[in-house]
């Protein structure tokens, strides 16, 4: 049986019981968080490690984003660009293969150790050699355990050279370096806590590179350092007084694990937390109407889409693909089901990334869709299935799509399942249709472009399992165009190539992109300087102060 599912409902019961007790005890409690501490209510049950060489989860990214410095980081004023973090400047060799970074002088880690080129090279070496989830990001540059010490090395204490295997677009390389996998680690501190390991076939090294210790600690030079992480309870951060930038305004930040939207809203209204991070539309509206609370939102790099498996002969017809794009009630969904948590978006690149376009050529139009279906020889409609995860707002959108498809005579059967079930089926290419989301792995258009338009081998044995592959879609010439865009040096030309790719996918790709996610948060009006970034690792808390 599906135990998490049962547990979830038990939790509702217990939450209800807790609320009953609160009400019975008479009147609200006037709890106030300490003046020098920020308390956030946040669902942090996805964290499995705080080690930037291992963590690949959203909440973990927020913690590592606040505790580590990077070589370069996203410029939050213009997210299509990057700016130096510990790097002061950089140059690219004429052949486009070697990047040389000059570090800012006299920087210190939270531990007091100096930040040197040695530490930067070590951080990349460690990432590649440990070979955990985020390692593929740097693996794209042709790095592996055998050549990484050769390709990434310290030239002198303040100069690092970084060699890639192909003349990639500079913006692509820098964007990947700005992901949390590029965090600069304190080599001395990390190796003090490293454990000896017996090398084996899978793991050839004799040390764990401090992985075990770093799961619950930090060794960075960011504005904060990790004090403790207790799974499903809290993450506690403390100000790093050795930080080279502007020091954080608050002394301590506590992420309290709170799963339910209603619980967060209640705690926020009572003053038990300063920020509620996982509010559903109803609770968010209530917070927006409360004069003691302020709200904020920011578009995130995640798009929600419906995809059509091209193995299904009906769905493979170009007219059917077009018709389905006309059968989503974009306006209705935008005004209701995803109000406040998403905005209608039809191209595969999320707003804010280089080359993203905001074209919305499709409107809900049953007559047009019927015409297209008739042209495809399916005037009488047909039956298809769609694998749908049991969560909102996906279920609501699926149910609505079922109705709108029905108006054009297409019968949609929804196959519900939990995330693991639906995803396993999707990855095995056994679905008809699938509704889900795609979050960019790093803040560069290549992350989405590759998954939506690259498919070098469309057979079942294909090794590159992009979304195009999962839907058995052969993007033909788009595959080559995606690869060309990755090597384009000129940022403006590169952007134009991605615009072109998006228009072509909009026209004929088997992906009905519906909306881009917006992250929302509500916070007490006493907070100043709270901002949400375009990704979770750019939700920075250093600028927050309290009145």
């Amino acid at each position, binding site marked *: 049986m599906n135990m998490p599912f049962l547990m979830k409902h038990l939790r509702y019961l217990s939450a209800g019981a807790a609320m009953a007790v609160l009400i019975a005890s008479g009147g609200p409690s006037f709890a106030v968080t300490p003046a020098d501490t920020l308390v956030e209510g946040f669902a942090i049950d996805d964290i499995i490690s705080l080690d930037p060489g291992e963590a690949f989860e959203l909440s973990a990214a927020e913690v590592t984003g606040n505790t580590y410095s990077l070589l370069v980081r996203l410029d939050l004023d213009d997210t299509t660009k990057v700016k130096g973090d510990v790097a002061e400047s950089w140059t690219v060799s004429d052949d486009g293969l070697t990047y040389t970074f000059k570090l800012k002088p006299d920087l210190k880690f939270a531990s007091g150790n100096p930040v040197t080129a040695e530490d930067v090279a070590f951080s990349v070496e460690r990432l590649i050699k440990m070979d955990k989830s985020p390692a593929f990001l740097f693996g794209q540059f042709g790095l592996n355990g055998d050549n990484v010490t050769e390709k990434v090395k310290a030239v002198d204490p303040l100069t690092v050279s970084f060699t890639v295997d192909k003349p990639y677009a500079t913006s692509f390389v820098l964007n990947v370096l700005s992901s949390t996998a590029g965090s600069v680690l304190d080599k001395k501190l990390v190796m003090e806590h490293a454990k000896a390991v017996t090398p084996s076939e899978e793991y050839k090294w004799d040390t764990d590179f401090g992985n075990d210790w770093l799961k619950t600690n930090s060794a960075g030079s960011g504005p904060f350092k990790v004090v403790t992480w207790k799974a499903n309870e809290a993450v506690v951060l403390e100000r790093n007084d050795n930080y080279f930038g502007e020091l954080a305004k608050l002394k301590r930040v506590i992420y309290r694990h709170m799963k339910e939207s209603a619980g967060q809203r209640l705690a926020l209204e009572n003053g038990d937390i300063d920020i509620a991070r996982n509010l559903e539309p*109803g609770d968010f509206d209530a917070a927006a109407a409360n004069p003691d609370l302020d709200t904020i939102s920011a578009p995130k790099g995640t798009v929600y889409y419906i995809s059509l498996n091209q193995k299904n002969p009906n769905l493979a017809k170009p007219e059917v693909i077009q018709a389905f794009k006309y059968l989503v*009630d974009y306006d209705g969904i935008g005004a*209701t089901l995803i109000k406040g948590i998403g905005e209608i978006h039809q191209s595969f690149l999320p707003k804010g990334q280089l080359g993203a376009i905001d074209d919305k050529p499709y409107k809900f139009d049953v007559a047009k869709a019927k015409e297209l279906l008739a042209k495809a020889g399916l005037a009488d409609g047909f039956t298809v299935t769609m694998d749908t995860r049991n969560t909102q707002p996906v*279920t609501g959108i699926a149910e609505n799509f079922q109705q709108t498809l029905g108006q054009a005579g297409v019968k949609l059967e929804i196959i519900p399942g939990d995330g693991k079930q639906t995803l396993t089926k999707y990855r095995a290419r056994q679905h008809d249709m699938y509704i889900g989301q795609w979050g960019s792995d790093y803040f560069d258009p290549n992350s989405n472009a590759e998954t939506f338009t690259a498919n070098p081998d469309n057979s079942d044995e294909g090794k590159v399992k992009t979304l195009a592959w999962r839907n058995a879609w052969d993007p033909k010439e788009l595959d080559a165009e995606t690869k060309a865009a990755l090597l384009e040096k000129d940022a403006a030309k590169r952007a134009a190539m991605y615009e072109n790719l998006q228009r072509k996918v909009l026209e004929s790709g088997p992906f009905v992109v519906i909306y881009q996610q917006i992250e929302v948060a509500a916070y007490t009006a006493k907070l100043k300087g709270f901002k949400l970034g375009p990704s979770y690792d750019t939700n920075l808390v250093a600028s927050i102060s309290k009145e």
Partner: protein
Amino acid sequence: MTDPSSPAPISWRDWLLTAEPHSRRQASLGRAYVTWRRFSENRLAVTGLLIILALVLVAIFADLLAPHSATTGNLAGARLLPPGSPDFLLGTDDQGRDILSRLLVGSRITLAVVALVAIIAAPVGLLIGTVSGFAGGYVDAVLMRITDIFLAFPKLILALAFVAALGPGIENAVIAIALTSWPPYARLARAETLGVRNSDYIAAVRLMGASPARIVIRHIMPMCLSSLIVRVTLDMAGIILTAAGLGFLGLGAQPPLPEWGTMIASGRRFILDQWWVATMPGIAILIVSLGFNLLGDGLRDALDPRESGR
């Protein structure tokens, strides 16, 4: 339809209540009449019967009664309207669908689940119970231990396990509920069988050379029927709740079917601000469950063998 052999025409009532029936048919009709009289004296039981009759009528004429489509809503124009809105008597849900229409059409699903479970579970329980009780010995031991195994698990948990194995869907929910509800009927039938298996009329039939199958089917099963009917009727409320529970957990009827439990589940998210989305199907479940319980109670009183004939 007076009996041709009776000397003078008599009233219907007297004919039915006569102490000396002239035919089998007259006897059984007479008995049914007595039962009905006892049943109809019980006002609550009649209320229950009326509720169930109303449910059946609503289910038959749902398409005519429903003012809107039960599956297609108006997302942009009529979402989460409160009860009493013009055109939407009971309000609308999060997909902009009329809740009243969904409840009316949903009554079909509820009724179908109840009927199917009763048709599957009751005969199975009856057969296993009577065979077990009549045969005795190791047949009895084996069948009863199997029954014990099923009885050892809470009904809903066992149904959940079956549905998880079979896959979500209304058909599988029916099968799962039927699989979990036959054991009490088997127990009941076995107890009744043990009471009559050694009685004289069974010995007489056996002396006349009747086969065990004939004895069980023709002479034992009828004796178990009345208590079984009462039990099944009383269980129907439980079946509805189990089906609704499975629907609530997403394992029963699938969208867009307007199954009442599923409707409550989808309304749960709005319970603080739009209470009616979850409340209306809840009230429907309450009323129908109450109807079955009242009917079952009334039937028990009316069919109680200790009181019959008086």
